[in-house]
């Protein structure tokens, strides 16, 4: 029997860039490698992911849609939450959703809580076989949004947090299986009512670094040993950066730099927090923005230190797993190693929560000889490869599908 899975996300995964996309991409691939047939439907922000979506299975959530507003009021950084309301309330969108979902599915895999209402309606209205509902959490979203929205004096922020909390509680209690990325998240979702929980850390994909690409990026990279920060445009990534570095990079000697990759570059560039220090920071930052995966791998292979200045946000940081699998020194915070606690004592790995200690440690590491215990670290981090991280998920889902079929 071929198991049919319907995956629901708020982003396409055709070109996986940010952490959420990469996780969803690897879960889909894991299902497929196990012989499942997977249909992924995404409700995506219309203006994002240009040319990186599948026209048939991606439903655009327009910028001007009235559902972008929460109770009629603009609230920043909640398009994901609002996409859930949009898909069930907008008739056109809902009809499209119903029409593109396969006639039969055994599993509805809900990636993050946002599209729960759609998943529940599909389960009860479209599929008479009552498919297994999997809630795949990436974070404790209400806690994360609270930290993001605390910077805004928005009149609706308390209601927004309340709505997300309620949504997460419903997901946890209604799902047949809850997948979490850290033991902390497991404990919270258990409190929210999750019955069956399985821990699946964020993983890493081992890729071969192209020598050619390495040569081409090398000419644009700093000549001196450099630190590397890779992060998406998710606001806590900039918050952590500025709070750990105390807004200024003057603690680094004038010839040392931090290379920054990903959407966080824009957040750093436009932040008012560094206004006073913009010339200091400009002299010590090399901002690359978005790069291809090949370039990313090449730059990572040349980094002297990978920094993870993460101070907020739940879940587990996918970039931390990648850093632990690298051949560079890794310097992070307790928060950045959430979910990877057992690997935080690996050679060349440092945890510093105090900003001054973090800065001094980075300064020392940039002066140290390159990291050499690569082999030992590779062996010790075998469990961080996606296949290993998700292997228990496959077993559990298989078991639940069979049980469901038998009951039917």
């Amino acid at each position, binding site marked *: 029997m071929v198991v049919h899975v319907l995956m629901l996300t708020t982003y396409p995964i055709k070109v996986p860039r940010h952490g959420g996309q990469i996780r969803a991409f690897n879960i889909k691939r894991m299902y497929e490698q196990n012989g499942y047939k997977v249909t992924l439907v995404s409700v995506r922000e219309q203006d994002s992911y240009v040319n990186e979506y599948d026209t048939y299975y991606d439903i655009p959530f327009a910028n001007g849609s009235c559902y972008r507003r929460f109770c009629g009021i603009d609230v920043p950084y909640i398009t994901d939450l609002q996409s859930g309301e949009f898909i069930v309330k907008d008739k056109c969108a809902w009809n499209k959703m119903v029409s593109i979902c396969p006639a039969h599915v055994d599993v509805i895999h809900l990636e993050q809580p946002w599209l729960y209402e759609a998943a529940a309606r599909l389960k009860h209205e479209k599929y008479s076989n009552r498919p297994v509902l999997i809630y795949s959490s990436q974070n404790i979203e209400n806690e994360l949004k609270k930290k993001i929205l605390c910077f805004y004096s928005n009149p609706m922020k308390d209601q927004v947090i309340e709505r997300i909390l309620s949504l997460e509680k419903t997901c946890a209690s209604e799902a047949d299986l809850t997948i979490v990325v850290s033991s902390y998240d497991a404990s919270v979702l258990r409190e929210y009512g999750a019955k069956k929980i399985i821990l699946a850390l964020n993983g890493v994909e081992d890729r071969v670094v192209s020598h050619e690409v390495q040569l081409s990026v090398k000419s644009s990279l700093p000549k001196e040993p450099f630190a590397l920060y890779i992060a998406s445009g998710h606001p806590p990534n900039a918050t952590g950066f500025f709070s750990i570095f105390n807004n*200024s990079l003057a603690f680094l000697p*004038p010839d040392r730099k931090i290379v920054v990759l990903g959407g966080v570059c824009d957040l750093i560039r436009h932040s008012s927090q560094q206004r006073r*220090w913009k010339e200091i920071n400009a002299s010590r930052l090399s901002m690359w923005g978005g790069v291809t995966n090949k370039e990313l791998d090449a730059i990572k292979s040349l980094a002297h230190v990978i920094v993870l200045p993460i101070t907020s946000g739940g879940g587990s940081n996918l970039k931390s797993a990648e850093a632990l699998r690298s051949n560079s020194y890794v310097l992070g915070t307790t928060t950045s190693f959430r979910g990877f606690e057992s690997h935080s004592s690996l050679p060349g790995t440092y945890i510093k929560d105090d900003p001054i200690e973090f800065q001094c440690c980075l300064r020392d590491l940039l002066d140290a000889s390159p990291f050499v215990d690569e082999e030992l670290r590779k062996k010790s981090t075998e469990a961080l490869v996606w296949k290993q991280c998700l292997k228990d998920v496959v077993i559990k889902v298989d078991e639940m599908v069979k049980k469901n079929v038998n009951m039917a």
Partner: protein
Amino acid sequence: MSIWLDLTTVKKWNRPAVGIVRVETELLRFFLNNQEWKNVKYCTYDKSDFSFNTVEFSEAKEWLHRIDNYGKNQNCDSYKQSQKPLYSLIRQFVRRTNRYLFKGLPEEVKTPLLSYLAQQYDGCTYSLKRKLKSITHSLSTKKDIASKSESITFLPNDIYISVGLDWEYKNMQQLYILKRDFKVKNIFMCYDLIPYLRPHLCVTDVAAFFAKYFSDLAWAAHHVLCISNNSKIDFLNFLDQLNIPHPITSVITLGSDLKKPDFDKINPDIKNLAKDKYILFVSTIERRKNHEVIYRAMTRLVDKGYKNLPKVIFVGMQGWGVAELMTDIKLDHRVHNLFTILNHVNDDELSYLYLNCYFSVYPSLYEGWGLPVGESLSFGKPCIASNTSSLPEVGTEFVEYLDPWNVSEWEEKIREYLDNPELVNRRSEHIKKYYTAPKWTETVNDVLQQIL
């Protein structure tokens, strides 16, 4: 081990030596005049190609002579009151249009035009001046490299002293490499951290520029000489805030012993001006120096019917953030005849003005040191200064200190001095008897003691 004195600022300076420039000129004078320091080497730095160039003894002497004799051959136009209508109009025109002038014109037209404007009208905007400086500097340094300069090889433990306008002329990143890789002991000065501490008192965008300058300076320095305890505290607090390792820091005292005036070198117009009773305020005219409180105090005295008020002489070039104040003074018929603004005053004229003033004022909002306070005292002249930052270190018990923002206090104190010539005389006698002006030779000895 060699000692190198960087003369980049002296080389480029074409005015009388002011505070910062004076530190470099006095160090140079000391080395040139003392046989035991004949082995000191001189150099300049070219920021455009990051090169050091040696300077011959004779050349250094020539540069010092040029600065010392500034104004000797100048005619009456060496000073002017800044109310000339044509001057104002052209300045306004330049301010409004300099961007377009720069953009549109080819280099061969632009440079001489800007030079002409700058020579004729020194009140051009800050940005114009900076651009002009960089153009003329790069032209002159390129010529020098081609003619007589040779590049320098520094050896470990060499001492490199740079005490001039380093934020303008130096690349601190390269000087950091000099320290780290060549083990050269770099000695720099910290005059003040005002652009960082009081960014609102500085030209826009300078705050971020100076924050970088000070942080790079700390990284590049083996030893930083601060010109007051207050500046040292400010500097170390800055380093702590940014988690920058401390270089060695020490405090030196700037000399304030201006020489007695040579009457032959004094412009007759200044002699005439100094015949009347006047209050003296020596300082660049910019927002931070708080000329406004003196203007307001004087208007209050006029409004309250005070008769026979003395003149107030501002000595200094017009800088940033005072355009409205200057217009107020010009248009305010109550006081506009009381204020005189002198620019391009040479050392002899300055000494003459100190010597003949009734008393001096220095209401600055923030200072790294406050040289005019010490200079006033060195001529036995009482000074009323503000109670901020380093100023109490300069004037100690010889100066009366007031809140720089409190116009009433300034009005009352000026009135008290005007009403009581005997009090002013007594204070003056007390200063003459007990105040010893720090000498520039002592400053130089202090520097050498700290760094060797």
